[in-house]
């Protein structure tokens, strides 16, 4: 059986003393899989993504990432796991006063690569997302689509084991959405597990082999049980 990269066991999440926004999430995502996370607004998609990119801890249950139980992991151990995750935020979260080059180079600098080691891969990545000539531009001078691509380049520059993208096509036209999807599937083919939160049905149908995680009112809807018991080979079939 393919090993799980993400495993949730009766995970719940609440903010402060409010009601639970996620309840009894129970699923496994296999290494090398391509997953879409869908559901209506307020279903808890963003909260689930926050758990996945370690911006939140579950308030109950067990959550494993890369085979390690992280529900109660020490704060000091989390950066090591975060470096294995590439995140594309819906609002990009680019650093406004840094150039596109520096934004993309940031993860490499954080893992301690020297400037000589950074230059080549960052230029290559910017060319890959079609922004080679915009390397010195700052985010406020870039269009929404260009910012989106800088965010994607930043997320994939370290070849993470897991990519989490929140509405990565939300700010771009259809042609750019197709291009972004192409980037993500290319990463997936190289072995990276991809989780994309989206409302875009076209994006989902254009990705054969992807599985679906559907949330409704904080509860996982998994009628086929494929997430609880994923297929032996990634890409063997869609869950819905």
């Amino acid at each position, binding site marked *: 059986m393919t090993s799980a990269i993400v495993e949730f066991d009766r995970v719940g999440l609440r903010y402060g003393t409010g009601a639970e926004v996620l309840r009894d999430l129970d699923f496994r995502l296999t290494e090398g899989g391509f997953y879409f996370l869908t559901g209506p607004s307020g279903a808890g998609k963003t909260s689930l993504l926050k758990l996945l990119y370690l911006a939140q801890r579950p308030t109950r249950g067990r959550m494993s990432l890369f085979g390690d139980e992280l529900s109660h992991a020490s704060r000091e151990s989390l950066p090591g*796991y975060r470096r294995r995750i590439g995140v594309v935020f819906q609002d990009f979260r680019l650093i406004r006063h840094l150039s596109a080059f520096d934004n993309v180079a940031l993860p490499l600098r*954080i893992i301690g690569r020297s*400037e000589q080691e950074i230059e080549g891969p960052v230029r290559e990545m910017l060319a890959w997302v079609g922004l080679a000539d915009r390397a010195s531009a700052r985010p406020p001078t870039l269009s929404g689509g260009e910012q989106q691509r800088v965010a994607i380049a930043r997320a994939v520059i370290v070849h993470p084991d897991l990519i989490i993208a929140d509405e990565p096509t939300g700010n771009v036209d259809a042609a750019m959405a197709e291009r972004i999807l192409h980037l993500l599937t290319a990463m997936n083919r190289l072995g990276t597990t991809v989780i994309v939160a989206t409302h875009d049905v076209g994006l989902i149908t254009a990705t054969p082999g992807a599985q679906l995680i559907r949330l409704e009112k904080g509860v996982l809807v998994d009628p086929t049980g494929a997430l609880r018991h994923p297929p032996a080979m990634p890409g063997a079939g869609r869950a819905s």
Partner: protein
Amino acid sequence: MSRLFATEAERRLIPAGGIRGPVPLLIAIMTFVMVVVAAAGLALANTSSVVKVGVENRHSIQINDGAAKAPAAMAAARSQPGVTRVEQVPPEELRRTLERWLGPASSDANLPLPAIIDVDLDAGADPAKVGTAVEQAVPGARFVAHSTSLEPLLKALRGLSVLALGLVLLVALASAAAVVLAARGALDTHRATIGVMHGIGATDDQVIRLFVRQIAIDALMGGAAGAAAAGLVIALILGRASTARMLSGAPPLGWNDMLLLVMLPLAIALLATQVARFALRRALREDL
């Protein structure tokens, strides 16, 4: 190995001047106060110890009812082992001293003058034995240690030195508090950048490095300016008539003291850096 300061590329994450604000000025003022107060405290402590050493083997014989008995008292003192000098204070000098209180009346031949005899002992001498010998030879004579007379003054000087040390510590504490506020303010200003860095996998040490270099530079610049201003004030004061020099015959601040004062701004910069590091780490721990 983790570096102490951020690299050029890392520094671009925090725009230049992003955390300066009033910190250098504040540290300059605090350093100025600290150096001046520390210099005053050291000068007082030095004066106190020089005066104490100067008088610790010096005594006087006081005979209230006249100079006629002085030779007998002097002979008794000289007969004791460890007595190095016995010398009567000339009556003219006593009259000059009394003139400050009595005016021209101090020259009146009928004015009864006490006899005062200075007695120096060496370190091994027993003052009690000398005193007993003098008092037996001249009943009514008093053998008094100078240190006893000066004890209230020495106590006051020591108290002022301790007060100066307390003030230095208090100002250092206020400086540390100011740095904590500045560091937290800087952190809040750059919260979004720090959030992105943490999300990508930056450690707290990497985030702290971005700020510590600037805080160290601010503290050093402020400290140097404050210390320079304080040095000027101290030089002006020392250049004028010094009570301490008159009392002790020695300069109130030695080379060791100067070195200590020069080290103070460096210590303040180090303190500011460490306090900032600690405050930033605590603040960062408030988030996951």
